[in-house]
């Protein structure tokens, strides 16, 4: 395997990485840590595929004429970008790699509750991924990632059925992971690891898992209905056959809005860990952050109608959905304030994980505040389906979730591999990602407010300057995303041994050797302290 380091230190020789070197020992493993690595490699592959589609989009938008791609080619590029990024990168990114790796370690367990189901979920993910690759090879699909009817059922020329099957299959991978996490967190906590002592990373993954198991089946049934209309001409969504096209939007967003919280909640869990470890201070307002995760998961199920303000939905329904969408901002804001308050008077080390966390907080706040604007009925009518919306959700998903993913990668890389990477390069890439991201997406807020619609590649010449700025930012961002790949892989062989706790952080995962042994802990740990029990020196003084 390419991810395998040279096993030299004593810790590495007895670690999970040393438990078998054959390809078979990786592909048939039930060790949650190895499955996390399998996920990390495969989602990185899909991140690059979707990234290439994004690069094509931004290249085409350099000029107002749209001379790189045909109309249809452009539609296929942004559809592929959306589908792969949402279902094959963002949704599995943090839960299936870091959640898989860390949840048993953080709660003091040997593995997840159902190790074989965990491996099965990876194979299901790969099977869904193969369908996506097939669609890619035979020419793609042009419906947008939302598959809106009647476009997807009656007019689209692409391989709608194949891509619906891909998304349907990958959904079961999500369901199995969510199921596994819920049972693991309930039943496998070490003695003394009460609910009130769980790290906030666990709380946010618990909330995410609830959404995964409750919302994903609704997407599955929606895709079944979509496929049966396209294949058997069942009149579910087509008015000519007695159906109703709006039903599709209701069903789709009932899943897909909670899916946004599937992407952002694990990221929030990561930030809680990163901020607290960088400040060496107990998280401010532990229960507020924990309950905010659950509140976001619960209220997130009741806001789907804000995608349909201009779709002919009743004005009373719209007013209620608008109100509920504003309500979701409250628990999100609680988290942002509490992270900031955690840093206050902390013993702060400006390491790469903190820089990524800072990037997250800033970008997430901008994304969240523009989300409030979009939740207001009047503003939404003005900017609906414009680049304002595109910029808003990229601030949440890329500025938020992807920054947190990179933050997690930089924070737990020494734990996962046992080696420290170059902190200088880590700081540089965090800075480049923050700058490149803003240069890419801030101009899009202005473009959208001025009226440039999304999903068109021909635009009036007066929008060119802002589009060129955005494309320049995108190339910077692409370089910044590739950069960590080099120094992290370099560190696998050449990095200094990290030791069990390179950041002086609290948490059970930092009490095991780096990389952890196959069974995580020599003896099952007994927990008698709350999470984030800083300062750590007190721990040894107390004995």
């Amino acid at each position, binding site marked *: 395997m390419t991810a395998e380091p040279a096993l030299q230190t004593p810790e590495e020789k007895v670690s999970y990485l040393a438990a078998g070197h054959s390809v078979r020992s990786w592909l048939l493993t039930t060790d949650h840590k190895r499955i996390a690595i399998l996920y990390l490699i495969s989602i990185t592959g899909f991140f690059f595929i979707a990234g290439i589609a994004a690069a094509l989009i931004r290249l085409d938008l350099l000029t107002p004429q749209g001379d790189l791609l045909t109309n249809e080619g452009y539609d296929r590029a942004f559809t592929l970008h959306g589908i792969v990024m949402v279902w094959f990168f963002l949704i599995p990114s943090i839960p299936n790699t870091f959640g898989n790796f860390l949840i048993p370690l953080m709660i003091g367990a040997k593995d997840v509750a159902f*190790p074989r189901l965990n491996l099965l979920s990876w194979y299901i993910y790969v099977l869904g991924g193969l369908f996506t690759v097939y669609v890619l090879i035979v020419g793609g699909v042009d419906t947008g990632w939302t598959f809106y009817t009647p476009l997807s059922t009656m007019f689209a020329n692409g391989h709608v059925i194949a891509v619906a099957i891909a998304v349907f299959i990958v959904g079961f991978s999500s369901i199995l992971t969510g199921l596994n996490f819920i049972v693991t967190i309930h039943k496998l906590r070490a003695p003394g690891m009460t609910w009130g002592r769980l790290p906030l990373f666990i709380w946010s993954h618990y909330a995410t898992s609830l959404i995964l198991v409750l919302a994903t089946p609704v997407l599955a*049934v929606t895709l079944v209905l979509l496929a049966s209309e396209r294949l058997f001409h069942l009149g579910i969504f087509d008015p000519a056959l*007695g159906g109703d096209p709006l039903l599709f939007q209701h069903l789709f967003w009932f899943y897909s809005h909670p899916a946004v919280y599937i992407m952002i909640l694990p990221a929030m869990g990561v930030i809680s860990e990163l901020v607290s470890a960088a400040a060496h201070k107990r998280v401010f307002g532990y229960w507020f952050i924990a309950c905010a995760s659950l509140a976001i998961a619960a209220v997130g199920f009741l806001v789907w109608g804000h995608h349909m303000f201009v779709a002919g939905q009743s004005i009373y329904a719209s007013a209620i959905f608008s109100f509920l969408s504003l309500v979701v901002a409250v628990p999100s804001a609680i988290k942002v304030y509490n992270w900031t308050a955690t840093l206050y008077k902390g013993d702060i080390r400006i390491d790469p994980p903190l820089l990524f966390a800072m990037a997250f907080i800033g970008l997430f706040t901008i994304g969240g505040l523009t989300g409030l604007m979009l939740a207001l009925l009047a503003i939404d009518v003005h900017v609906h389906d414009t680049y304002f919306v595109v910029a808003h959700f990229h601030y949440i998903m890329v500025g938020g979730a992807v920054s947190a993913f990179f933050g997690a990668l930089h924070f737990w890389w020494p734990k996962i591999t046992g080696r420290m990477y170059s902190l200088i390069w880590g700081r540089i890439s965090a800075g480049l990602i923050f700058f490149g991201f803003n240069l890419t997406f801030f101009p899009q807020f202005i473009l959208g407010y001025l009226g440039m619609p999304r999903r068109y590649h021909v635009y009036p010449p007066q929008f060119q300057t802002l589009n060129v700025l955005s494309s320049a930012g995108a190339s910077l961002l692409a370089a910044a995303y590739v950069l960590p790949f080099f120094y992290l892989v370099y560190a696998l062989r050449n990095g200094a041994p990290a030791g069990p706790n390179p950041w002086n952080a609290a948490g059970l995962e930092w009490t095991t050797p780096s990389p952890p042994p196959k069974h995580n802990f020599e003896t099952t740990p007994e927990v008698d302290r709350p999470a984030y029990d800083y300062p750590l020196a007190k721990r040894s003084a107390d004995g």
Partner: protein
Amino acid sequence: MAEHVTLTEPYVEPRQQRQADFMGMYVFLGTETMLFGGIFALVFAYRTLHPDAVAEAARHMRLWIATANTALLLTSSLFVALAVHAARRGGRRAVAGWLGLAIAFGAAFLALKGVEYWKDYTEGLMPLIGPHASVRDGPAALFIDLYFVATGLHAIHMTVGLTLLGTIATLVGGRRKGVPSQAVVVEMGGLYWHFVDVVWVFIYPLFYLARG
């Protein structure tokens, strides 16, 4: 029975493993509930929008077949419950026997369902194929299509359930799964079967009894 249970990774005690198995199954059934829930929500919404058309379409459904099927399915669930009881007491042959009966009743359900689909076809209720009944011209068509999606999805679950019960009966009957030490296998299969049964308990009133 707990002391007989074979422990697997990552559990440290039998009770913990048993609780985790049950919880995992219940969470899975929760996801299944949401799968059918999406369709049921559509039916409710459509019934509110078009009460008359839905009532008219429901009058085309074959109530007597559905009623007989309800009786068959509920009885098969009783047999599964008896199989679980037998598994806990270690009655290997009784488990296989009760499960065999449950499978027979489940298969009879599917056979009757097939007869019903045939009658739907000849009457012209099916989309795309066969003759075309006049009731399919109005808004009732969506209700009828949802009936095919819901009962079809349920029939797929029935088939999975029958395969599952058959496998468990073979494994327990052939001593490859011991009872009561691995009775949890019978209990898990039983929970799934009861769930499929409960889904039908919702399908029956939603599509067949909503004639008023």
